[in-house]
């Protein structure tokens, strides 16, 4: 589908996102079945998960704390008195015939997530609510040609649903919003944010209207976008599709549409008019929950540093560039590693360079994560410090000391440098001897250098490094060279 810029610019999109995040609790929301991905089908199923006659939900209190942490991270109001509700509908992957969720008393209300807009501005996306609920099982339609198979391992896995206000203006903002939410849940360690495995899922409510209009277009819900990239693509497609329909003078039916990642389009699933009446009512099998301020304060104390806080710290206090800071906070584990490094060195820029340089290269080459990187942050900080003292050069550090550290992880970098005789020789007397030799061996070049051909400096430095077996500190050696040649 093609849309001219002229027509596209006549319209604005209104987008709200619903993100479901599976909580990383040990057990399910209402039973002691393990909360695990990838187990053999229907092996994590107690009578409670199966919804067998007479079973009751058994509250996993960890879920409540996880949800509160997300609320704190997004500056939400935490609801003091809440209860669960039943959402009634029939589906084979919902064994009880209802989902335990929250209706009128979501655990968090208000709050916001900060994102970047297309032109790099910071924008607050308001949150309507965050509520707790349980996941359904999985209906599998593509294994057996005649039957739908049901795996109830996922049934009862705790979820939080994060509902944004319809304040997202385009697919890039949506992309940045989901990225920011994912970063938050990962920093909080409450969800692994893996959209491919479905542990984080996103539905989008999209409508379009003429710019400046007060009347919203009818809302279309798009489901089944299993990566952040797909969220962006699906929204882009849907905006275009809706504008084309409106341009043709057609009504947009309020419906649920399915995103097909292969075809890159959305297709109608069901109309909203035919939607279920979910008959919400308070879940009588669970006690209401009361969250005290004391409890919230207790959780606040154990909150890990969050990306926005670290960005501020890196740019304001550590004086790193926005670019460096963003690179570091992009992954929680990288940021935590950097935190360890900067606890042991004052050369923040140096630490950042090493982290985003040699360490990142190592991780890429070996296809491993930072927690599998052999050298501790403290050791890496010691290496940065060693360079700063001038005892070894950057190149010695990266080409010689660093490789030894990788295999000899307990050894301090200065020990390694000393044992291998890599400590820089900044002694002017010994260097002076080499420089006299160079002056004598290169009379023509010396003349040209003295006549102003400064490029020859490289040649002399090369010879000096060779003669000193690399132990000359390039900076002081350079100064001494020109001083002696030019005198």
């Amino acid at each position, binding site marked *: 589908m093609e849309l001219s810029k002229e027509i596209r610019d006549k319209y604005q999109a209104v987008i709200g996102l619903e993100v479901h995040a599976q909580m990383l609790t040990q057990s399910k929301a209402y039973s002691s079945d393990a909360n695990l991905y990838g187990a053999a089908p229907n092996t994590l199923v107690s009578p409670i998960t199966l919804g067998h006659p007479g079973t009751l939900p058994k509250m996993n209190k960890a879920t409540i704390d996880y949800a509160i942490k997300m609320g704190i991270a997004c500056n939400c109001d935490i609801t003091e008195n809440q209860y669960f509700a039943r959402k009634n509908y*029939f589906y084979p992957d919902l064994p009880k015939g209802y989902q335990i969720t929250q209706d009128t008393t979501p655990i968090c209300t208000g709050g916001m997530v900060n994102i970047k807009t297309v032109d790099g501005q910071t924008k607050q996306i308001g949150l309507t609510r965050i509520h707790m609920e349980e996941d359904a099982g999985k209906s599998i339609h593509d294994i057996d040609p005649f039957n739908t198979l049901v795996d109830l391992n996922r049934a009862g896995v705790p979820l939080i649903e994060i509902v944004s206000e319809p304040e997202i203006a385009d697919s890039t903002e949506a992309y940045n919003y989901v990225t920011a939410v994912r970063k938050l849940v990962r920093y909080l360690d409450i969800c692994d944010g893996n959209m491919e495995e479905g542990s984080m899922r996103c539905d989008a409510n999209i409508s379009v209207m003429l710019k400046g209009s007060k009347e919203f277009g009818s809302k279309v819900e798009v489901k089944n976008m299993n990566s952040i990239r797909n969220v962006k693509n699906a929204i882009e497609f849907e905006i275009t599709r809706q504008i084309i329909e409106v341009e043709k003078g057609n009504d947009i039916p309020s419906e649920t549409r399915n995103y097909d990642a292969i075809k890159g389009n959305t297709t109608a699933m069901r109309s909203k008019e035919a939607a279920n009446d979910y008959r919400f009512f308070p879940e009588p099998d669970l006690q209401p929950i009361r969250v005290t301020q004391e409890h919230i304060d207790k959780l606040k104390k154990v909150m890990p540093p969050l990306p926005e806080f670290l960005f501020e710290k890196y740019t304001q206090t550590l004086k790193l560039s926005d670019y460096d800071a963003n690179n570091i906070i992009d992954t929680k584990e990288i940021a935590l590693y950097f935190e360890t490094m900067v606890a042991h060195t004052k050369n923040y820029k140096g630490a950042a360079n090493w982290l985003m340089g040699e360490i990142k290269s190592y991780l890429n080459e070996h296809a491993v994560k930072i927690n599998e990187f052999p050298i501790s942050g403290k050791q890496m900080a010691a290496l940065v410090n060693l360079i700063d003292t001038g005892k070894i050069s950057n190149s010695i550090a990266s080409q010689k000391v660093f490789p030894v550290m990788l295999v000899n992880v307990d050894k301090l970098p200065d020990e390694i440098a000393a044992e291998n005789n890599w400590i820089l020789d900044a002694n002017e007397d010994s260097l002076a001897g080499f420089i006299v030799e160079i002056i004598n061996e290169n009379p023509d070049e010396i003349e040209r250098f003295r006549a102003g051909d400064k490029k020859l400096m490289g040649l002399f430095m090369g010879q000096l490094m060779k003669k000193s077996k690399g132990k000359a500190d390039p900076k002081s050696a350079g100064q001494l060279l020109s001083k002696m040649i030019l005198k």
Partner: protein
Amino acid sequence: MYTSFDKVKSAIDNGTTVVDVVSHYLKQIEAKKHIHAFLEVFEAEAIQKAQEIDAKIKNNTAGKLAGMVIGIKDNLAYKNHKVSAASKILEGFESIYTATAVERLIQEDAIIIGRLNCDEFAMGSSNENSAFGNVLNPIQEDKVPGGSSGGSAAALAAGLCTASIGSDTGGSIRQPASFTGLIGFKPTYGTISRYGLLAYASSFDQIGPFTNTIKDAALITAVMAGKDEYDGTAIQEDINEFPIEKIEKGSLKVGYISDCLESKGLNPEIKTKLEQTIQVLKKEGHTVEPVSFPYLDAMVPTYYVLTTAEASSNLSRYTGVHFGRLADNVKGVEETYKKSRSEGFGEEVKKRIMLGTFVLSHGYYDAYYTKGQKVRRIIQNKTNELLSEYDVLLLPTTPDTAFKIGGVKDAIQMYLQDIFTVQANLAGNPAISLPMGTHSNGLPFGLQLIGKHQKESELLSISAYLMDLKQ
């Protein structure tokens, strides 16, 4: 013969074995087969268990309930045993776990002798709603035993077990106890874990016993009671016993609900008995005063709005897809649901599911469910207010004695069977029906006491006292 646990124990002390006791009951069950109290008798298993318990008694390792033979209502889960809630939709279904209450009885060496007939999913007041046939009242076999725990009442009244277990959502223990001349006790909501009780209305349901003595009621209830990690709505403390205290002359404050006494449908003989009881208590020096409870008319409607709402959701799991009876020749998921549920549920259950679905549906929720909750709160508050002044409330259990099988055709008339019993479920308070009289028609009837929240000991002590006064 073995009408109480004391009688069983004294027989055992005199050389009778538990195997003898079980054999006696099995013979009686066979002889009274036609009253249809049992849906299934665990014959071989009960004998085997009796042998084990005889050995335990010899070794002095037997539990509190050794020698007690108990029948359980067919809405309690018992691992590797069928449980159907007397519904076709669960025909053939075996539970894969055991209800907390049943587990605790077994832990104390009670013998579970079988599962007892009841109204389908505990919905009914006559046991005529069982998918597997109705139950006869052993006192007069052309009468109903009451419901929904009709099988539990009939089994004990016919001497087929030492005690039986039922469940009470709106009177389902007390009403049949009244109809069969037994003690029927509904403890405070949450006293006994509901884990393993097939839910009818979650915020009303409570398990309780049928017994011939208060002592047995206290013992069995205490064994089943106490906190359970599998039921978050259950009491949070452990319970070891409900001691029966002696009631001193002139120490009680009893309120009798005059609105009940004056209610139109109340059988005059029951009214007279109630008045006599009031006089006897007064003569013993107790304070007995009329109290007003002006919400009698609101009771049954409120109960039906709220219980059917919960039931419509609780019964959603019975689709035939994951367990229970699946309809034949169905295509697609929607047809599977419709046909399995249409064929599997009986008329009364379907009616209540429809009613509950309606009261929860969009546009009607506030008018029915929300309003029902508000009225429930008012009834709770008023009940607690009265019980802050009085030790117990005295009222009839049922408006009349057991009626003829097929005798009540009108649904509203049937629902009004619960008029005096639903208050305790709406308010959550403990309540007990005591066999206080026999009508000139030869049928027994009960009087009811409602006690203070979580004061089962007090209520049972007053009950024991009242039973003694009667004699």
